[in-house]
Structure formats: structure tokens, C-alpha cells
């Protein structure tokens, strides 16, 4: 039987029932994990716990382990024992930007999250997110497609992907980047664990960007944790009528910097002293819009940036439905209109 490494005792301590971060920090403050384990008097099969983590491919890190992220050292809430799958070193090699938001986003939010995720990764920035449904997932989907390794921070044990629907995305992140958790294998993802996860997420990020958030949404935990650490927080402006943008618009009112495109995030990074090797041009839409004439122009006039039903458009334009649909399709083909579930709007 080979001797167990100190991390095995750390994992055993973290896995013990009733041991929270505070107890863990106190136990490990003065002693090495193996000493702390024997002094604690806890009973448990250290080897079995260790093997369980090894089998699941989980790396256990204590503050003394070489792979422990440098940016967590000195953090007021630095986890005494950190679990990860993938290569934990990526958070030290790349600048990190957290893209967070609501679990029930609009299509706008999903689109923005995916685009920012892809653009940041292409610029060599690691995208940090929580692997939740909605904005988190969309940001990671975008980030996985290109460039810098993605970073995920989750609330439960690393042996059980949560939410189930993101199991494949989870595997891709493990492959390309890293997934962190404060909790050992076997811990179920429970609601009350999310705020703590969000604090760790903020601690790992150079800049936090909220894409869409409802009033009092979970992303606000990330925001307050970031503000406590002096991390810049940006928010993507949204429609004042969209409940999904209530939280982000309130953040803008409170003084967070507005994020219109990736260039704004890059500017925030450079203010923190992180300069990217590649420069970013601000997205511009200077293409002159194609000229629209005839009945199509009437239809375009009737369209607004808020979606309208076909019925409304038919009433306003007083056109035959077939002709109206034809005009809308033509406008869509030149990129001036779009529809979602049959509701049409200008773009």
C-alpha cells in the first residue's frame, strides 16, 4: 500500500459530514492535512475517498498544492480545499472574464452571451461561467468553439454533471479548460450552494460581465462579490421593457460600465493592466442599408424593433396575407427584418 498524499486527507476532511469551509479553514490553518485529519479525530476511509476522486478524474488542491490558482491566494474567501477537473493552470495563464446571467434568458441574451463567449475566447481570454442553463451555457458554448480555454465553476461535486442537459458541454470544458468546485465528489447540487459558487467565480475573474439578469437574480451575488474585491463589473444594456434586463439596467444605473461589444470588455481589462496581444476593432455597422421600395417599404415602415404579430402587420398595412408574407420574406433576405416564432421585427 502506497502512502497517501496530503491532498487525500484534505479531501477526506472536506468530505466529512458537517465540515464547512470555516471549519476546514480552521483545521488546515496551522496543520498539514494529514496532521489535521488525525487531530480532528474524524472517522472515515481516507483511501476510499481518495480513490473515488481519482476514479472520477478529480484533482484535489490545497493552498500548498502546486496547481492551486495563484489568484485565489490571499482572497478573503479562498477555498482551503479546491477540486477541479481539467488543467487548473489555465486560470493563471490567461486573463479571465466572467460572463454570467439569468437561467431564463431571452434570445437576445443568448445571442449576446454566445457572441461574447466566442469573441473573447478568440482574443485569448478565458471565459469563466457557472455552467448553468441559459446565459452561462450559451457563453460557454460560444467559448468552446474557439481559442482560449474555458473555465467553469460549479456548485456540486465534480462527479455528477449538473444540470444534466449540460453534461456534454461539461465534458468539453474539462477537455479544453477546467471545471472548479469547492465541494468534494458526492455532494449534490443544491440551491443554497449557488451564492458561494458565485463568490468563487468572481474571485477567479479579472472582469465580470452580466449579460441579462432579472431583478434580484443570482448574478447579483457574483456582482457583489466582485465589487468587494474591486473587480470591474460591466452590464449589457437591455430593453427597459424586458424583465430579463431589469437587473442589468439597474446595474448600469448604479454605475457599472456598459458593455456594448467585446471592445468595451477589452478596455476594462486594459484598465486593470491586462493588455491583449491583438487589438480589437469596435464592431461597426456602416454598411448602407439596401434601398427598399414599393409595398416592401410600407411593410418596413410598419415593422418596429419590438416584435409584432402578423395580424398586427396585416391590420396596419391592410395587405393581403400572402403579399405581406412575401414582402416580409424579401426584407428578411436582405437582413432588414427577422422573425421569432412568427413575430416579426426590424433588425
Amino acid at each position, binding site marked *: 500500500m502506497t502512502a497517501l498524499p496530503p491532498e487525500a486527507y484534505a479531501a477526506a476532511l472536506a468530505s466529512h459530514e458537517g465540515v464547512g469551509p470555516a471549519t476546514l479553514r480552521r483545521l488546515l490553518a496551522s496543520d498539514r492535512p494529514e496532521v489535521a485529519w488525525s487531530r480532528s479525530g474524524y472517522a472515515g476511509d481516507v483511501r476510499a475517498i481518495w480513490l473515488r476522486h481519482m476514479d472520477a478524474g478529480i484533482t484535489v488542491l490545497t493552498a500548498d498544492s502546486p496547481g492551486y490558482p495563484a489568484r485565489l491566494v490571499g482572497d478573503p474567501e479562498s477555498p482551503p480545499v479546491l477540486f477541479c477537473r481539467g488543467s487548473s493552470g489555465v486560470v493563471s495563464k490567461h486573463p479571465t472574464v466572467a460572463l454570467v446571467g439569468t*437561467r*431564463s434568458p*431571452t434570445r437576445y441574451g443568448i445571442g449576446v452571451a454566445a457572441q461574447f463567449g466566442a469573441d473573447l475566447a478568440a482574443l485569448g481570454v478565458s471565459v469563466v461561467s457557472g455552467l448553468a*442553463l*441559459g446565459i452561462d451555457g450559451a457563453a460557454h458554448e460560444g467559448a468552446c468553439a474557439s481559442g482560449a480555454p474555458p473555465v467553469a465553476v460549479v456548485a456540486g461535486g465534480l462527479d455528477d454533471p449538473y444540470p444534466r442537459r449540460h453534461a456534454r458541454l461539461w465534458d468539453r470544458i474539462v477537455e479544453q479548460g477546467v471545471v472548479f468546485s469547492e465541494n468534494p465528489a458526492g455532494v449534490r447540487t443544491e440551491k443554497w450552494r449557488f451564492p458561494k459558487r458565485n463568490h468563487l467565480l468572481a474571485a477567479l475573474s479579472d472582469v465580470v460581465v452580466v449579460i441579462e439578469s432579472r431583478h434580484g437574480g443570482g448574478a447579483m451575488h457574483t456582482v457583489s462579490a466582485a465589487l468587494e474585491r474591486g473587480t470591474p463589473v460591466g452590464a449589457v444594456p437591455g*430593453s427597459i*421593457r*424586458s*424583465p*430579463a*434586463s431589469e437587473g442589468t439596467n439597474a446595474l448600469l444605473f448604479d454605475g457599472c460600465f456598459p458593455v456594448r461589444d467585446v471592445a468595451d470588455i477589452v478596455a476594462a481589462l486594459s484598465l486593470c493592466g491586462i493588455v491583449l496581444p491583438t487589438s480589437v476593432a469596435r464592431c461597426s455597422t456602416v454598411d448602407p442599408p439596401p434601398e427598399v421600395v414599393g409595398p416592401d417599404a410600407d411593410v418596413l415602415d410598419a415593422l418596429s424593433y*419590438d*416584435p409584432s*404579430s*402578423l*395580424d*398586427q402587420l*396585416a*391590420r396596419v398595412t391592410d395587405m*393581403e*396575407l*400572402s*403579399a405581406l*408574407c*412575401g414582402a*416580409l*420574406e424579401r426584407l428578411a*433576405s436582405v437582413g432588414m427584418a427577422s*422573425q*421569432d*416564432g*412568427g*413575430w416579426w421585427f426590424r433588425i
Partner: protein
Amino acid sequence: MLASISAATLTGAVGRPVSVEVHVSNGLPGFTIVGLPDAAVRESRDRVRAALLSSGLPWPLRRVTVNLAPSGVRKGGAGLDLAIAIGVLVATGELPAASTDGWAFCGELGLNGSLRHVPGMIALADAIPPSLGLVVPLSDMREAALVRGEAAHGVATLAELAAILRGQSPWPVMPEAPATSPGGLGGPDLADVRGQRVGRHALEVAAAGHHHLLMVGPPGSGKTMLAERLPGLLPPLTPEESLEVTRVHSAAGRELPHGALVSQPPFRAPHHLASLTSLVGGGSWSMRPGEISLASHGVLFLDEMGEFPVAALEALRQPLEEGVIRISRAGGTVTFPARFLLVGAMNPCPCGEGMTRGACNCSVVERARYTRRLSAPLLDRFDLVVPLARPDPDELLSPEPGPPTAESAARVTAARALAAARVGHPEPPLQPAAKHLISQRLRAGELTARGVQKVGMVARTVADLLGAETVTEAHVSDALSLRMARSVVTQ
């Protein structure tokens, strides 16, 4: 001492001839029925006895045995009461045996000796050999006459029938059939619907091309109101369809309209808590037609489609494909017609506000769970998946009625005529721009091969409704917009 009387019983929507043999012998007074009777048949003893006594006819204080042949077939319902009563009368010598030769009897008895309605009279009348005359309750005579004509006779009471069979009085004359209300389409009118151009258009397309329709919209967008008005757009039933529909409705024990023949397309709207059996038909052995068969040649409306059990929805797939439903039980297999126009309605999400951006509070998981009920193969059966919106308040409150059903029905009839005239001729080619639009969608992956075919068919119907010969880009755009809510229900 022995009598044999012809009658019929119902298995599903199909009648089977039954010979009711009654034997009266000396012994302890008693009454036994053999030959696989169900509870209702077994209880006929009490009805028959009371009916005979109330009619002033004697009940034998002897041993009575009733055999229902063929003995292997289950007999259900109270329709054999009359045949048993006549059998008892013949076996006890109250009626001459010769008087019942050449006659069959179907009817339920009341304790006062009156003859009562029996469900499925058409199918029963069908089962009686054509050489026999048929005696039925007066209330069922019109139904029986549909298939038996002059050979059907209606009688009001058992006493009256006994008198006729004894030759003491003549057969009553068949009362004059009430004139079938001409043109009275009945049902609600589209004029009650305000606004809803898209909804009306979708109804016309569905009716003209027999395209199954799924309406997706928030509560209060008029989905149910529109669906109820769809049968009014369908052409009246042909005589053959009419008889088929009447048969099924009769077998299900539904009350038939005056004149007995169902001539308007039926409309059935089962609740989402309806059991699978009540939807598709069946039962342990009585095999009754279900809602989908009652809706045959008409409209089957499933409101709150997302709330129906998955099993019920999946059971619709085969009848949608074949136009019939085959129900197999240990006791055998029956086939019912099930050629209906399927109209579904659902909210875009559990809270219903999903189409209006930002107003929906449902989580992604809730929405997915709600729409997952509709499997992709079932969704593929819907050529039209139409997004509906709440009507504009001004239009809703306007005192002016909307365009009436007659206007839409005329367009549908014209379109159907155009389509019928095209049968056997090569399809006129699509306009190049229309073809381009479809191929663009195919390449972008927004349409599958099946989708292309469906869009083509719907575009053809749209063109027919507008009286156009070739399918243009506008018609294809229209057809595309009539399936745009697919993206809402396939998240």
C-alpha cells in the same frame, strides 16, 4: 314450448345476428339466460317480467331457459329485451309461432311495457338478414329505416306489438320524416370572431387542403373560438360519408339529429383528461368507437395539447396516417373509421405568455417539459403550426361583425374544386422565385425534405384559395409563415 326469435347485438360498431331461443318447461319456476350475456342482458329477466305483467300479458310460473346463439359471442346491452319477451310469449303459446316467422326484434323494455331506444340501431339493422322484417322501438324507427327502408317497423309498446302479431291490429304507419333543415349549417359563425386575419386564413387553408392545424398562442387569443368554427368551412358530407358517420355515432350511442342522418361534419373536442380508450376507442370487449372515430369526416379539436398524456397523443399517429383505427383486444379486432381533420391548440409555454417577449416567467426547463409532449413525428403531421396573437383591443370591442363563415366557406369550396380539377393532371410548375425561396430554406437547414414537401402542398392550397394557377413566391412565403410557430414548440 320452444321459440326461436331473430335479434342482433352490437360488438363495437358492428352488429351480429343473434338467435334468441326460449324454452319453457315444467319444473320449479325460474329464469336462466345462457350464451355469454353481460350484466345488462342478465338483468333483462326483471325488465321482461315486469313489462309482460304491466302489458296485461302472463308470465309463466314455470321453468324458462333463454339461450342466446351463437353462444361464443358476448352479448351486451338491453337491446335483446324485446326478443326475449316475444320468445316467452311464443313459448308459452300466447302468440302463434307462425306470427313471428320472418321478423326480427330489437328493443329495450321499460317496466311499463314501453319500448325504449337502443344505441347502434343502424349496425343492428345491418346485421339482420335482409329477408326478415325488423321491429324496433318507435324512437329508433327512422334510424333503422336508413338501412332497412320499408322493412323497418316502429312500435311504441309491447301490448301494441302483441296485438299486431295476433293479427288484431295493423302495423302503425311510419310518421312523416321531419324535413331536414336545409342550409341551416348550425354551429357558430365566423362573424363572431373579431380580427384574427391569420387565424381565419389558417382555417381556410386547413379546410381547403385538409391540412392538420396546430394553433399556438396565449390564452384569450381565440384558439377555441376559431376551431369551433372550422366544421362550418368544410363541405357537407357526401351520402356515403354521411352513412359512415351516422353508423359510428349510432354505435357510440350518440343522439342522432332529426332525420337520423348526420349530414354536417362533426366537431369533437375531448378534454385532455379523457382516457386513452375514450379517445381512440376500445373497451374490454364491447369495443366502442372513440372520439377520433366520432370526429371522422369532421374536426377533432384537442385544446391544451401540451396537457394531453403522451400515450394519447402518440396513439393518434397511426389513424392520422391510415384514416382508420384498428383496436385489438383478446376478444378480437375491430376497425373504426378515423379520417378526421386534427386541430390542436396550445399555449407556447405553461404560463401562456411565451410569445410576447419578456412577459413569460417560465424557466427553460418548464418550457421544455411543456413542449416535449409533442414528439417530432406527431408535430410533423401538422402542416400548419400557426402563431396566434391576442386580438387588438380596438378590433375586439368594435361592434362590426367579422366576415361571416359563408364568405370563407365559398372560398374553400372554390379552392377544393380547383384542386379536384387538377387530379390526374401534372402539377403546374412553381414560379422560379418560389422555387428559389424553398431551396434557400432547404440549404439553410431551416426545412427538411419532408418540410419542403409540406410547404409545397400548403403553398398550393394557398394559391388555390386565391385562384392562382402557379405557385408564386408570395404563396410560399405565406405557407412558410403558417408554420412559423414550430420554432416555439420545438425548443
